[in-house]
């Protein structure tokens, strides 16, 4: 029986080796990569080409929606729902709206940043195959891992682990689904 696998994972004992491995794997053509490290490594994002994602767009949309909602809410209240003469000013006195419009922009931009981050990361996630590798718990202590997923077009059950072996890892293991 052929066991279905999630991918393969290589273990490294220092961050430089991980970054070099990630770079090498990208050069080789692999795209479905992920790396795990106990602390953030700035170069890793470059090596994995992770700079572009849709989060800024989500935050921008959240900010615009928040700003519009804040402005229109005040417009509705002061012009339509409960018009009051305040100091002889016009009902639609926009300077007074700006502070709340600004705050609503920030609020919804911030909320959409958090929600968007969770959504893009696929959180909450109750199960992840990476934890099937016994040594993976070390990723939060002193080991660095690089995984290549089976869904990668270049993935090959034999060639991919062999390729990872050439990157001088501590260990290469198969990740069960």
């Amino acid at each position, binding site marked *: 029986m052929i066991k279905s696998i999630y991918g393969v994972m290589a273990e490294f004992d220092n961050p430089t080796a991980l970054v070099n491995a990630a770079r090498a794997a990208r050069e080789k053509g692999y795209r479905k990569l992920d790396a795990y490290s106990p602390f953030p490594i700035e170069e890793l994002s*470059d090596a994995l080409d992770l700079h572009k994602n849709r989060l*800024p767009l989500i935050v921008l949309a959240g900010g615009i929606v928040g700003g519009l909602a804040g402005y229109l809410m005040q417009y509705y209240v002061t012009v339509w729902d409960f018009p009051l003469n305040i*100091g002889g000013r016009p009902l639609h006195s926009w300077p*007074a709206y*700006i502070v709340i419009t600004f705050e609503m922009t920030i609020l919804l931009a911030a909320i959409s940043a958090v929600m968007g981050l969770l959504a893009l990361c696929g959180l909450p996630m109750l199960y992840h195959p990476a934890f099937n590798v016994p040594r993976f718990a070390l990723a939060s202590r002193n080991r660095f891992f690089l995984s290549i997923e089976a869904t990668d077009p270049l993935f090959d059950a034999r060639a991919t682990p062999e390729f990872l072996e050439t990157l001088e890892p501590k260990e290469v293991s198969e990740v069960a689904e």
Partner: protein
Amino acid sequence: MTLENDLKLWRSGALAAGIAGAVLCAIGFFISPFQFYRSYLWSYLFIVGLSVGSLAWLMLQYLTGGAWGVVIRRPCEAAARTLPLVALMFVPIAIGIPNLYPWSHAKVVAADEILRHKQVYLNVPFFLIRAAVYFGGWILLSWLFNRWSAREDREGPAGVHGKMAALAGPGLIFWGFSVTFMAVDWVLSLDPHWFSTMFGMLFMAGQALSSMAFLIALMVLLSRRPPMSEILTPRHLHDLGKFLLTLVMVWAYFSFSQFLIIWAGNLPEEIPWYLERLRGGWQYVALALVIGHFALPFALLLSRDLKRNFKLLAGIAICVLFMRMVDLYWLVAPDFRKGRFGLSWMDITAPVGMGGIWLAYFLIQLGKRPLMPLNDPHLVEALEHGRE
């Protein structure tokens, strides 16, 4: 083409424009001394913003001690070294006080109870003493930082870099106070009845923004030749672009806060200042500021790719510099042109003349020392930071 050739070329260009502008201004002085002083004052404020703002950036980068400031350290130092020239350029304003400030006329003061009370502060000798204190402080700071920087070049950072960091904090506090009082003295007192506690901050943000925009445009120009072509990378520029975005927002925040408070209060002693600036054509200048000084640069600078693009970022920096001048004009000129927008030909020759002469002097100063502070303890970090 080398950097020396470039600097020489820019220098002679700036000097030619400066002399032409200065000659035209001198002619203008004999046609209309009033207009001469008015045009002189607002272009002078712009030059003060560039030089004093650069001094503030110099101190900020010592205070925070990061790698981001290493690439702009030498241009900041050179701009700070122009301060004696800037102080010299103040002389025409000192002479022109009666032409500019209503509180300097004994008759006006005698007929105005409010001005009689303000006379303790608003009088010519004290005005000049205060100006001397600002320039004295700025020049002293600039002299110390440049002296220590030269020593660091010769002997290494041991001892001397700590001194610079230690002076940077008090120096920035002095900057905050001096710029606040400067704004009140030179600009706010043009309308001696009006007051705003936000006004000094508006000028602090304005100076920092002007000088950062100037530094960005300069760095992009320098990056075409060695050594900067090998040092300056999109990551350095990205850092500077973030500052530009921040300051565009800070400026908008301060400007709007001042407006909102005065608009909401609607008090007869405060609101006329805005009424003057929102009628007779001046409202379109205000609208141009909202769009060109805030909305447009803000929206564009949000983009990460744009902040890493040398040409685009320099283009925006130059637009921001232009809008800084528009902003200063909108702050200063409506007091002289009540109810009707106008622009004299001297309002063009004065900034060209003064800017050209200042720029030529700045470029001479810039050429005097190596473009990178080779003994800066953050130098390696700054170079590493630039590599992707």
